[in-house]
């Protein structure tokens, strides 16, 4: 069930250029399930900024009632969020949306996880849950530049991990697709989250394969009421049919929605 809670900040640190890791504690964590869900965070108590910010859940620890978010402090809201100190509280609405279906892959099979930039965080909880289920995970993670890379070691502990940077300052130079095209990984299910061009490149390559992608969209409510975040369905790209990223997604099967 969706809850609203003033969650306690347990840890809050800068882990790469403009990238922050935020650990929150509260009973809302008990409602979290699938990897790939997100929370909607109020970054300020006033009305400026007015809207909440959607941030994926990167790690869940139900025992401790804690979850971790990883976000980039870029605009007004996320910069304000970054200024919150440990032991203060933030207003969190969640968990929201539907995550990556982990039951779609069997023990012993291999999952290819492809993330770009701030699309990487939800893949961490996904990798953990898949590994717990005995699924082998291969991680291909793309970043802009070395100083923006995060969690490479954490991922490496869970499976083969390939880093790419656009400027070649770490790992393979170029995009995640460079690694994918080069290594031609053998996998059963693809899971991905990242910028639209990356997701499109993946769809082009793997449209016949089983796969799930997580989308971003500017949001109002985050719960399905305002119709800010709709996408057309691929089967009816100009019709009245739609899905909402916030409540039907953010994760959809490859090829289901029009990537605009």
């Amino acid at each position, binding site marked *: *069930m*969706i809850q*609203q809670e003033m969650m306690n900040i347990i840890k809050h640190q800068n882990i790469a250029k403009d990238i922050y890791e935020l650990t929150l504690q509260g009973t809302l964590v008990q409602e979290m399930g699938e990897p790939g869900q997100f929370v909607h965070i*109020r970054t300020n108590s006033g*009305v*400026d*900024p*007015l*809207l*909440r910010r959607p941030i994926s859940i990167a790690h869940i620890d139900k025992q401790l009632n804690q979850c971790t978010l990883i976000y980039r402090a870029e605009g*007004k*809201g996320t910069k304000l969020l970054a200024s919150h100190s440990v032991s203060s509280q933030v207003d969190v*609405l969640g968990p929201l949306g539907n995550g990556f279906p982990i039951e779609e892959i069997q023990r012993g099979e291999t999952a290819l996880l492809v993330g770009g930039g701030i699309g990487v965080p939800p893949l961490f909880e996904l990798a953990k849950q898949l590994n717990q289920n005995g699924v082998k995970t291969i991680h291909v993670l793309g970043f802009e530049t070395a100083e923006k890379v995060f969690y490479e070691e954490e991922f490496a502990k869970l499976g083969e991990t390939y880093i790419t940077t656009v400027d070649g300052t770490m790992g393979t130079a170029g995009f995640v697709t460079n690694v994918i095209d080069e290594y031609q990984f053998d996998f059963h299910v693809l899971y991905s989250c990242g910028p639209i061009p990356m997701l499109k490149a993946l769809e082009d390559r793997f449209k016949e394969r089983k796969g799930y992608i997580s989308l971003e*969209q*500017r*949001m*109002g*409510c*985050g*719960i*399905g*009421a*305002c*119709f*800010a*975040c*709709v*996408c*057309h369905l691929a089967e009816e790209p*100009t*019709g*009245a*049919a*739609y899905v909402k990223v916030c*409540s039907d997604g953010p994760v959809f099967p490859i090829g289901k929605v029009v990537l*605009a």
Partner: protein
Amino acid sequence: MNRLQVELPGLSLKNPVMPASGCFGFGKEFSKLYDLNKLGAIMIKATTEEARYGNPTPRVAETPAGMLNAIGLQNPGLEGVLTNVLPWLEQFDVPIIANVAGSETEDYVEVAKRISLAPNVQALELNISCPNVKKGGIAFGTIPEVAQELTKRVKEVSAVPVYVKLSPNVADIVGMAQAVEAGGADGITMINTLLGMRIDIKSGKPILANKSGGLSGPAIKPVAIRMIYEVSQKVNIPIIGMGGIESVDDIIEYYYAGASAVAIGTLNFTDPFICPRLIEELPGKLDELGVHHITELIGRSWK
């Protein structure tokens, strides 16, 4: 006696707080968060004759103390609303105010005629901010004669009282209000959004795919208060006020200005529990102000 009970044409409200149209969908999502029976009423999302997908995304953009939206009246169409939405809402003991939109007078008339017959629809809210296709895209809501005529036509067919929702994008809001009153409106709801735009610094292009959109939220509250203050002194029909309400103090301010009930739009996104929370806080506020019944506050600023 219920201190928050408000009687308006067609509407017997257990309290004067309701979600504004377009900010609450058709109630389904919020029904998972709290008991919709707590609400005074529900203004459902605009219904048009045909189903609409609406505008391309991005459809929202944030602004200082406000937001822009250009949803584009996405809705399942009259048929869909009549068969799926309204029957589902019947489980709640809450009057429904159906927001009616269209591109031509005939659309409005058709939707109004049929939707007003639904058992739980107690009033219509005419969204006259829509551009009129036949008149070259000029909004119905900016020309008094056109708004009056539209109101009259809808009144002729509606089985329930008709509230007209005024657009703030006019020089003379009192003239508009008087025109719809003359057209037979039973009440007024105000304000709809102000027209606005935001441009992305990186791309140089408007953030909204639709380019411009409607500005809502606390930023527009002073405009709404001013308009309600003026209109309430010049018409004899009640006003449901809206625009940036975020606290019980804001509700009181709307009452002082001249509103008889209020609606909450954008703030449902920031705080999804805002409607029941403010309803709960209202009686305490009345105590603080030393009034027994909320209706005592109507128009105090000018009475």
